[in-house]
């Protein structure tokens, strides 16, 4: 099927094959590095997430793409939509902050002036859920700042379905990657 192209590759030599493979791998590496760079700038390990459940309807539906930031110098307030991950659970959850509390510094019995001098404790609830998330916290009473991945700043509807499709049908992912790889080996700039 690709005998012509394979013959051409063999004729052009090893360096040429290395160059073509490099083209493909560099596209992947660039995409990956852009993701990592975005994570560093937004201070979150996952700057773009996909909504998987309907617990935040009518604000977010399944398949929406969410853009997150995690400003280290800002407090989380009631009404912020956060994405958090409990250690022990493998999927992050997108819910709204219901309550926030600041821990009083003991034994001096005062609350420090700077906003983040004390850790924040949060309670969340999905807009479309009847009860708050206490049952989801796996034993914890409150969420801490370190569990929060980020705060939702913007969203794009429907775009996340591509990621959902690729997760539910891994063959699609491999087919796409395989197709791209083949194209990269055969096509020349």
């Amino acid at each position: 099927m690709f005998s012509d192209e394979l013959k051409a590759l063999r004729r052009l030599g090893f360096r040429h094959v290395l160059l073509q493979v490099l083209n493909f791998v560099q596209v992947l590496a660039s995409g990956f590095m852009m993701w990592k760079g975005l994570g560093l700038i937004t201070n979150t390990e996952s700057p773009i997430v996909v909504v998987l459940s309907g617990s935040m309807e009518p604000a977010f539906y399944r398949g929406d793409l969410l853009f997150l930031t995690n400003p280290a110098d800002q407090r989380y307030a009631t009404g912020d939509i956060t994405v958090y991950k409990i250690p022990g659970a493998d999927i992050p959850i997108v819910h709204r902050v219901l309550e926030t509390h600041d821990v009083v510094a003991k034994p001096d019995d005062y609350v420090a002036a700077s906003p983040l001098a004390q850790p924040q404790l949060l309670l969340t609830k999905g807009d479309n859920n009847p009860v708050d998330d206490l049952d989801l916290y796996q034993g914890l009473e409150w969420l801490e700042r370190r569990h929060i991945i980020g705060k939702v700043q913007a969203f794009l509807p429907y775009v996340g379905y591509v990621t959902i499709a690729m997760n539910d049908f891994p063959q699609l992912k491999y087919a796409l990657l395989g197709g791209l790889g083949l194209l990269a080996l055969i096509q020349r700039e």
Partner: protein
Amino acid sequence: MAPRNRKAENGESSLSAGTSTKASETSESSTDGVLASALLPPTEGREVVKVNNASVTEMKHACDDALKRFLSRPELFNQIYTHTDVRLGLGWASVFVALGTGLYGWKVDFEKSKPAVWAGVILYVLLTTIQTLYAYFVEGDIVFVGKRKTFDKRIVTERITLTSTSTPSKPSSPPAYSLGLTYMRSTSGGKSLLGRGRAKGDRGYNTFFDEKGVMDQEAFERWVGEMVGRVMVGKNE
């Protein structure tokens, strides 16, 4: 075969003209004879090259590949791969940096990994920027760099660089392949310059590719051979 009739007719005649004018310099005429035969298209069978003749990029690549095959034969030049190797080195280094950063970020917690991931991202951007700048400024349109050492009372090193560009088609002219050559001959390890030459030529792609897209490699090689011969034998600048 109507399109073929428009190709240039001066293939072999100018080559023989070049050798006859230099007949007075005895040492050079013998190398010219060997060179002249080396610059003709090889006689043994070759693979058919067929490309999409509507794509200027494909035709340019086919011409560049034919050029490299023709000029890197043992009796002609040894191809120098410096530009390719620099691109490959920088590119693969950046890929390994990306891989390392990914693995590190996966193993270590986000907060703790931040300084190393910053370093990785900055290094990656640096390497890819240098690679792009090198390819654009230093390598540019160069498609072949060749070197040749001949022994003739002293070691003579010859270096040839070929650049090629494509000019797109206009209503009045077909798409054309433009070839530029730079030639230098030196001795005693490159310290004393014996001669230098430059040449430029264009031909429309229609002179080398027929209506089906099959490349007339002989005609192409004859044209290249003629230009290389001219620049090697011709006047010293």
